[in-house]
């Protein structure tokens, strides 16, 4: 039950969803990109999706919101070079993704960057073939 949206077209698919393994478009709104920086509080290394929970502090009010970030499956992440211990509670990360449709503090991750090192996670495997 992973999220697979096969985009067989370029621009049209922004408005026309296509089926895949199950629907990304039913869960997330690609027209609402988000960038979140904060401290990891929990990791769920589970199927069908792994999740990061991240405390994000509002720069103006100081209010802290715990965001839930969906990624692929542990199997998929492993094949991209992740391990279950790569990100720990307390690590600072920056996430880019799309906003969830049905929970205001839910997003998915197109990229996860470790603040301390600048390392972009999940890109290692393909780039390692260079």
């Amino acid at each position, binding site marked *: 039950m992973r999220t697979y*949206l096969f985009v067989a077209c370029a621009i049209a698919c922004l408005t026309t969803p296509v089926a895949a393994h199950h629907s990304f478009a*039913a869960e997330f709104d690609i027209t609402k990109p988000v960038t979140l920086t904060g401290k990891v509080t929990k990791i769920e290394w589970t199927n069908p999706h792994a999740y990061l929970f991240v405390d994000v502090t509002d720069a103006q009010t100081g209010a802290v919101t715990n965001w839930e970030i969906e990624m692929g499956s542990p199997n*998929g992440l492993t094949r991209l070079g992740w391990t279950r211990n790569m990100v720990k509670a307390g690590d600072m990360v920056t996430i880019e993704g799309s906003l969830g449709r049905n929970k205001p503090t839910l997003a998915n991750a197109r990229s996860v960057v470790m603040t301390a090192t600048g390392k972009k996670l999940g890109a290692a495997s393909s780039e390692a073939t260079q």
Partner: protein
Amino acid sequence: MRSAIAGSLVVFAAVAAFAQTSRGTLAGTVRLRDAAVPAVTVEVKNTSTNAVLTATSDKSGRFKLTDLPEGVYEITVPPLGIAADRFDQKDVAIKAGQTTTLEITLKQGNLGVLGDDNGYIAIHNNSQDIRGPAPRTRDGHPDLSGVWNINVDPHPVPASLLPWAQGVMKERVETNFRDQPAGLCLPDDPTPTLPLLRKFVHTPKLLVQLFEQEPHYRQIFLDGREHPNDADPTWMGHSVGRWEKDTLIVDTAGFNDRSWVLFAEGLPHTDKLHMIERYRRPDLGHLLVDLTLDDSATFARPIERHMTWQLAPKDDVLESICTENNKYQRNAGIK
């Protein structure tokens, strides 16, 4: 001479040493994110003659086509699994005596969600340089065993649906395909078209396919049995196979009508669905898979898909228990 085309493609043309020729050259590199992608087919179509030539990227992602007649071309790279969408570039000029260079950056598929491409390109890149003849089983037939990285049909012909099925598809599109069975951890698609890993365990009397989605296995009986009469309809149907020379022909019937067939399309069907798969292993590293779906109560004509799968000897299917932590219903707003 230098020109730029909007998007991820930039065209550079340089005057070559042999300017007297009436032919030109196309060369470049195929990349995804920051990585070169080997073994990618680049299709080059002459817009005047409709002639199509192909090149394959090398280990460094480079490709080259020489001796092209001067003219205007369309460049296409078919999609790669879930990892990359189709790349199209029109109006690429090839000029006599010149080399036009295309730096092709593929667009990430599946909206680039981290991990959701299941490492397709990583597996693809790790599976190069596999050469040799196809192995054979004790009875002399090609042995289809192995872990296969499924790829999509590079040129699928759209399905032609009867009116009721068109109505179903309209509703599915309008609801963002929210109600796909996979969202509830049910089997989604009995066709072997989801571009992920699929492991074949092949004995002379039985072919077992293992995969990471529900129901995780499929049996294809090679012992001469026929489909049972009046069996309960099932998600995956009942499969029997027979050899026609070096081609394994698998016949599957007895489906229920609950699955959504064909990856990326999510088509409805009835319990009259009949699936034929033809498997050929021309060499060690490739499996050619031709698929025919027939359901005269749903499709105006049979649907065909033609795929080339790649052996992935460094990878394996892994455990994946969908119900472990499935939040799809909440995330998709299903009450």
